[in-house]
């Protein structure tokens, strides 16, 4: 079989026939609808009059009422934009912290030899297992003694100290997938571990770094328990805390405003996701390794 024939055959196999692409689209669109329904419902609810929200699964309000957005944005003592700003700052700071500190730690666990490695690794994983409810109070007292309560430090500083074992473990798994010949060759050339980390591991790990960035941003944005405990002043509330100010199970709630602001709260994380998922894709080009 000549090279040309083989190539054509391969191309035929690689490019799926038209009907197949159509079928894929149909299946994906149908699935999308199921995934999207809740969001559409939330969007509809944000335009519904208050007493129509419950007990109705309709995606179409009886009449459009944009009042909820206005009430939500300006209704609380502090403008909702302020909460967005707070959440954004905290989330971005956490993204930087997690990506830097967890990749350093993961590099050591995945690539370096040192005594006690298994022991420390097991301990690191162990920190994933304890429910946070029982460490909450000791931790609160710790931060209180550091005089960090009512600041963003308890939310942000831990990320710079690699306390998120989830991300360390994630990166370890990916770093271990990078061919070892690469850094062994570099080592032969006298590269320091730092250079290997900077010049080989990081550039080849864009997909996982982007993943970590996306997750950190979203987890931090959606997190509500830590801000609940550590941020007292309404001026320092995050979006999630602000959202809960509309609803109180023991009194009069503003559901319309809740849904309106919930919809808006999705926008930044969606943008962050769309932006960073490009890195997920670009990762391919740089990973075209020869083995």
């Amino acid at each position, binding site marked *: 079989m000549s090279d040309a024939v083989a190539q054509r055959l391969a191309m035929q196999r690689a490019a799926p026939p038209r009907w197949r692409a159509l079928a894929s689209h149909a299946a*994906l669109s149908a699935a999308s609808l199921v995934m999207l329904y809740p969001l559409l419902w939330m969007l509809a609810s944000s335009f519904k009059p208050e007493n129509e929200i419950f007990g109705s699964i309709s995606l179409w309000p009886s009449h459009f009422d944009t009042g909820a957005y206005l009430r939500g944005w300006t209704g609380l003592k502090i403008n909702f934009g302020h909460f967005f700003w707070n959440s954004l700052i905290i989330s971005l700071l956490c993204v930087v912290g997690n990506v830097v500190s967890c990749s350093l730690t993961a590099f050591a666990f995945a690539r370096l030899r040192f005594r006690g490695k298994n022991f420390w690794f097991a301990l690191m994983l162990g920190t994933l297992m304890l429910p946070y409810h029982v460490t909450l109070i000791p931790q609160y007292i710790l931060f209180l003694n550091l005089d960090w309560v009512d600041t963003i430090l308890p939310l942000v500083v831990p990320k710079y100290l*690699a306390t998120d074992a989830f991300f360390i473990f994630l990166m370890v798994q990916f770093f*271990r*997938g990078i061919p070892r010949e690469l850094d062994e060759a570099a080592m032969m050339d006298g590269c320091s571990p730092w250079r290997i980390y900077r010049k080989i591991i990081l550039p080849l790990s864009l997909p996982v770094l982007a993943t970590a960035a996306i997750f950190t941003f979203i987890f931090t944005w959606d997190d509500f328990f830590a801000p609940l405990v550590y941020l007292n002043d309404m001026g320092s509330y995050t979006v999630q805390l602000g959202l809960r100010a509309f609803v109180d199970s023991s009194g009069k709630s503003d559901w319309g405003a809740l849904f309106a602001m919930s919809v808006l709260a999705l926008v930044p994380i969606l943008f962050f996701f769309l932006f960073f998922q490009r890195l997920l894709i670009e990762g391919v080009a740089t990973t075209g390794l020869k083995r």
Partner: protein
Amino acid sequence: MDSIGAVAERRPLLRHRLSQAARSDRRAYLFLLPWFAGFFGLTAGPTLASLYLSFTNFDLVQSPRWIGAANYIRIATSDVNFGAAMKVTFLYVALAVPLKLAFALAVAMALNKGIKGLPLYRAIFYLPSLLGASVAIAVLWRTLFSGDGLVNKVLALVGIHGPSWISDPDYAIYTLVLLSIWQFGSPMIIFLAGLRQIPRDVYEAASLEGASRWRQFRRITLPLLTPVVFFNAIVQTIDAFKAFTPAFIISEGTGGPVRATLFYTLYLYLEAFAYFRMGYAAALAWILVIIIALFTAFSFLTARYWVHYDE
């Protein structure tokens, strides 16, 4: 003579090795510095404190009072809620974890092809996970899965009369399993990132040899993806054991109907914050840690037989 010579020869080698080990230790610890600072500065203290609290009676206001192993003894002998919570949690782990992973992997594979509009689909599939555990989800789940909810309306079209899924003790847990599967975004993204790291040329080689799609998946994709599968399985299992928010949001902390959604951490939370028994809650937490640790250790033991690293 011979042996002495060997020892004499080995000695400098040994010293060399030792110093090399010390040097690589130092290097590694330099990389681990932030982690050590975080572990010893922020994590270890509260963790040990919670271990100590598990041997006390602590009502959050008065100082903790040492009561020995009484909390653990009560859990082991006379706590009916413990058994109920265990049952609910194990059922949830056994169902939610494999289903969610299979779903996430399937969708990630589907999304890893060269179809137009991929970023859009990816975003849409990730959307439910973005919603997290908001109050809106609780309201939505109720409108979907109550007796006259959307799900039953659809089922009625094919002549099935469904129960009130979310409020029937026989079915409530499954609506939470479904919620977990529906929010499959995180493992999906991790699978995608894993698929992205598989070099194209491996497939090209396989294609040329005339491998079928299924064969490609079995022989190339899956083995190269095992580290990521392993990660997702471990992390999702730990998460499922610790699952709190879904039950807390959907049942608004009641764990009902009856005890059908009394997740382990929900029970623990109620003990700590609703009934002022932080010491008891800490004991519950440490029992959970032991269970999760056993599972994880077992997974790591089996990993050598099926997880392939490029090493």
